[in-house]
């Protein structure tokens, strides 16, 4: 299918400079598999169910509060599941189990970093965010600052993060569909895009949340079963499981220790910073805190989410080792392909398919169908959440508060967000076609760097530091954003691997420790030097903001249905 689309792909590549220009994505072969009826039937059952939910949700979605925040009527447990669902994307399910399959212990290091951001969000961010904001994190960042510049910045940060994350998801969709459903690639990407648009446009946050909850439960059940089967195969002994894995893996004992993922201290710490603080800057996650009634429920959601996510990462780790044990070098699971002129033996469909092949090995065709459908559903749900958050940035921040300066009516705002959803849906489809063969886990890491360097510092300082001014927030935030993107482009992952230069200009793979520090330092410096009258007014408003953030007095309540 691909030869028809190089022009679109090239246009998208040019339009998104610095996003790990995936020139390689255009050179791989698409291999269509025979139609997998189990997977297709189960996927259609899921789709029918979610469309029914969307219909139900559409009848309850009237106001802007319904559309952006499900009317604030989601409970802590439900929201915890939805947050976990947003986080357990296809990229982390397939990407991290693939990383464990390829590198062993390094995969665990990666997932640990994804998890430890959650306690920090609970201790410092969640309740304050709920008490101060309404629909988007820009509500909080711009609480006592000038609306136009701060919201413009926050919307930019949101759209950049969402776009990179969308690429990772759509790449996952493309890969899966080739392998699992035997469906035509383009039409399958179109199905993802169209379904996602239906959920968001008609069902708003209520439908998006329930799709996410259902998928989270399905994924947790499926992954639990796989981990159980793997452990059963190993006689419920981890020692035995590790022994068997070490015997068959080409790297042998090395998979039991930290390896090349963190080749030097600076990179290791920088990756940790990106994963930890990036979580607190992901707009589609932050948005979920506005769907619960109050700070108490917001707090509970993080507790549940941390539990589910932690459990899930332990499962992916077992699944990765299970794939080494039961899939690696097994007949019918491997293929030899030519990459960069070299013959490479890999899993059919690439190593990102480790978890999928394992499903086949432990549960046969029917279970393979189930896991395939779940993986596809995961992409749908996460893409819907991302798109809703991008659309809110366009309609709530840019249109209603920047363009119309807070004077638009609710109807117009909702209409704009629906158009924005459609536009983002089209962009997602085009990106899905353009970036095919990139490692999806790496793309997610990229989104985290940007979130940690642009969104997080501004959000954090707006809540914790009286001295923050508009000038400081906007300039510091943009410095964080551009430095994160620039350093990734000049670093080894893009400059050497993608652009094929000999040596990287910036030596580290993970820029967050530098770009986030730059953002904090410049936000502080510029704010401190800002002695304008406006700046003094902004500082004076901190007391009222602080009291509201601590007590919830004046916070937006839940609407009753």
């Amino acid at each position, binding site marked *: 299918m691909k030869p028809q689309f190089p022009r679109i792909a090239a246009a998208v590549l040019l339009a998104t400079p610095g996003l790990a220009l995936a020139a390689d994505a255009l050179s791989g072969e698409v291999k269509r598999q025979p139609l997998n009826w189990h997977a297709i039937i189960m996927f259609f059952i899921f789709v029918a169910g979610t469309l029914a939910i969307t219909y139900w949700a559409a009848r309850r979605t009237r106001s802007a509060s319904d559309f952006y925040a499900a009317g604030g009527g989601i409970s802590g447990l439900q929201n915890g599941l939805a947050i976990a669902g947003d986080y357990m994307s296809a990229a982390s399910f397939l990407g991290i189990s693939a990383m464990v399959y390829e590198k062993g*212990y390094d995969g*665990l*290091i990666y*997932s*640990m*970093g994804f*998890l*430890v951001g*959650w*306690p*920090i969000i*609970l*201790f*410092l961010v969640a*309740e304050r965010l709920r008490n101060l904001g309404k629909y988007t994190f820009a509500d909080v960042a711009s609480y006592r600052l000038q609306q136009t510049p701060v919201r413009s910045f926050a919307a930019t940060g949101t759209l950049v993060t969402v776009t990179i994350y969308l690429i990772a998801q759509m790449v996952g969709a493309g890969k899966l569909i080739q392998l699992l459903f035997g469906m035509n690639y383009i039409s399958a990407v179109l199905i993802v895009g169209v379904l996602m648009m239906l959920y968001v446009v008609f069902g708003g946050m209520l439908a998006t949340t329930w799709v996410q909850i259902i998928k989270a439960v399905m994924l947790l059940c499926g992954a639990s079963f796989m981990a159980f089967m793997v452990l059963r195969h190993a006689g419920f002994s*981890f*020692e035995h499981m*590790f*022994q068997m894995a*070490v015997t068959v893996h080409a790297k042998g*004992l090395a998979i*039991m*220790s*930290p390896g090349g993922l*963190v080749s*030097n*201290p600076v990179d*290791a*710490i920088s990756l*940790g910073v990106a994963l*930890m603080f990036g979580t607190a800057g992901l707009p589609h996650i932050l948005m979920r805190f506005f769907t619960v009634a109050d700070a*108490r429920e917001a*707090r*509970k959601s*993080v*507790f549940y989410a*941390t*539990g589910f996510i*932690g459990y899930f*990462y*332990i499962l992916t*780790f077992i699944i990765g080792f299970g794939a080494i044990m039961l899939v690696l070098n097994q007949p019918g699971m491997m293929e030899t392909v030519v990459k960069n002129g070299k013959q490479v033996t890999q899993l059919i469909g690439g190593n990102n398919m480790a978890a999928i092949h394992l499903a086949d090995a432990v549960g046969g065709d029917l279970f393979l169908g189930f896991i395939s459908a779940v993986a596809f559903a995961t992409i749908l749900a996460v893409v819907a959440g991302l798109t809703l958050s991008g659309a809110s940035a366009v309609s709530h921040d840019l249109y209603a508060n920047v363009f119309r300066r807070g004077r638009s009516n609710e109807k117009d705002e909702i209409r704009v967000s629906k158009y924005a959803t459609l536009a983002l849906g089209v962009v997602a489809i085009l990106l899905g076609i353009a970036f095919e063969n990139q490692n999806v886990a790496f793309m997610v890491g990229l989104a985290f760097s940007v979130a940690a360097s642009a969104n997080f510092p501004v959000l954090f300082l707006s809540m914790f530091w009286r001295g923050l001014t508009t000038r400081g927030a906007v300039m510091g935030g943009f410095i964080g954003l551009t430095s994160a993107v620039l350093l990734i482009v000049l670093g080894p992952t893009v400059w050497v691997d993608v652009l094929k230069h000999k040596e990287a200009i910036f030596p580290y793979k993970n820029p967050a420790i530098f770009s986030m520090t730059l953002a904090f330092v410049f936000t502080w410096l510029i704010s401190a030097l800002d002695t304008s009258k406006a700046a003094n007014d902004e500082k004076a408003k901190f*007391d*009222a903001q602080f*009291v*509201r953030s*601590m*007590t*919830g*007095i*004046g916070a937006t309540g839940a609407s009753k249905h």
Partner: protein
Amino acid sequence: MNDEILKRVQSNPKFVELVHKKTGLGWKLTLIMLVIYYGFILMLAFAPKTLGTPIAAGATTTIGMPIGVLIILSAFVLTGIYVRKANNEFDVLNKQIVEEAKQ
């Protein structure tokens, strides 16, 4: 929120207590999480071999494995501690503050 309510809340000793306790606990637990995680990262960076030590003589399992799982569990436990304390103690205090602000 008008100025009067603001002043009333700020001068309420219970508010001072809430801020003190809540932010205190929040930062304390944050620090613990940071120490656990970056301690691990530093070990990874400067002594990666340590994590590769077998758990017992002749075992394939390395001590890095249980350490990794413990770090994941510690994140969950720390959030549990915070939520428990907040539900039982901070919310009661907060409710009183809100009530007293209305009078």
